């Protein structure tokens, strides 16, 4: 009802209507260049918005592709390997070295590897080098010649065994120079921490030889003193 009454006020409030009309007519005129300025601004804003839309349209596939590539890289990258499995970044060479080793995992092959190291080769060659010294003592002490001969025979057998074991190692050493790793150094190998039976046998023989030489020397000294005393 109130609203219906309000609708009739148009006709009733003539003074108010005239006053408002006059007020509206007295309003400042619209600047002539306002529309031109406004259209210019509209063009700028539209261009800005279009560029923004274009930029976002061009960028989003690249961003999406980068995200997918990153995800693929994360999932396809193998996990960092442990030193045991030889898959770590720092040990690709170690894996190569270990492969031939695993092929020949028999106890004999292990023994061959141990003997083939340079340090052990020296040890193996030591009795060979000492052999001439032993033979120089032969004319001095004839009765000792027989056991020494036996000893040298045994020694030769050991050396032969070592030589046999060394033979298949030869080509392996050539490759080892290329693919040498820390694990290839004999002293760092856990299996080299204990002496092999061959090494123990060799050391016993060397000890026997040394004892015999000491006895020979003592005999020579006593012989010499006896001769001197006889002369006096």
């Amino acid at each position: 009802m109130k609203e219906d009454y309000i609708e009739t006020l148009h006709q009733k409030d003539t003074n108010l209507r005239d006053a408002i009309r006059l007020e509206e007519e007295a309003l400042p005129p619209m600047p002539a260049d306002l529309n031109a300025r406004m259209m210019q601004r509209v063009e700028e804003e539209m261009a800005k918005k279009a560029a923004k839309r274009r930029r976002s349209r061009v960028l989003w596939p690249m961003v999406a592709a980068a995200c997918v590539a990153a995800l693929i890289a994360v999932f396809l990258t193998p996990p960092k390997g442990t030193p045991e499995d030889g898959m770590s970044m720092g040990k690709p060479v170690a894996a190569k070295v270990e492969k031939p080793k695993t092929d020949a995992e028999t106890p004999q092959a292990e023994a061959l590897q141990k003997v083939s190291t340079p340090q052990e080769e020296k040890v193996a060659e030591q009795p060979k080098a000492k052999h001439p010294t032993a033979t120089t003592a032969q004319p001095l002490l004839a009765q000792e010649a027989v056991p020494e001969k036996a000893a040298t025979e045994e020694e030769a057998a050991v050396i032969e065994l070592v030589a046999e074991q060394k033979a298949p190692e030869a080509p392996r050493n050539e490759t080892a120079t290329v693919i040498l790793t820390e694990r290839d150094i004999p002293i760092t190998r856990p299996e080299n921490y204990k002496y092999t039976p061959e090494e123990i046998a060799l050391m016993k023989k060397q000890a026997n030889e040394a004892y015999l030489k000491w006895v020979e020397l003592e005999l020579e000294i006593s012989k010499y003193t006896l001769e001197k005393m006889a002369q006096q």
Partner: protein
Amino acid sequence: MATDIEANLIEGLKEHSPMAQQTMVERYGRHVFNQVVRLLPSVEDAEEVYQDVFLKVFLNINMYNEEKASFKTWVSRIAYNESITWLRHKRREVIYFEDQGGEAERLSETEVEATLGHPDPETVQLIRAALKHLPPEERSLITMFYYEEMSLKDIAYVTDSPSTTIASKLFRTRKKLCKIIQMIQS
């Protein structure tokens, strides 16, 4: 309901056609400028808001729903909101008449009709002087009703208020004007 010309114009605006934009500005520019300059204290401010209004119209043309209001009313709504937002943000200090004691409310309808209804050039001048003491929202409200002859429904759409509230505000504004005239006369 939009006429064919208006429908074509809206279609052109949706396609961001510069010709349609130019036509739109020529057709509704004056109306928007008056609405804005009525609410804002200076022409410079009105020019700034005027540009913002049309920019908003061009960018948000797809949001226009012809079932809710005519295109002109929709543009008026944007202009009104932009002006009110500008006034709130700038917080310009302008002194308006406020009926603190409720004296205007106590005026009878007969008194109001006698002041505003009987044709009198002197009263018209007094009303013009009194209009300057009204807050911008109220001044805009009575202008939309008396000068632009908008319906309560359309005014409600423009100001985003219920029609009953608009009716109450119109009654109160009329009484307030009478009170101001009485104060000027005394």
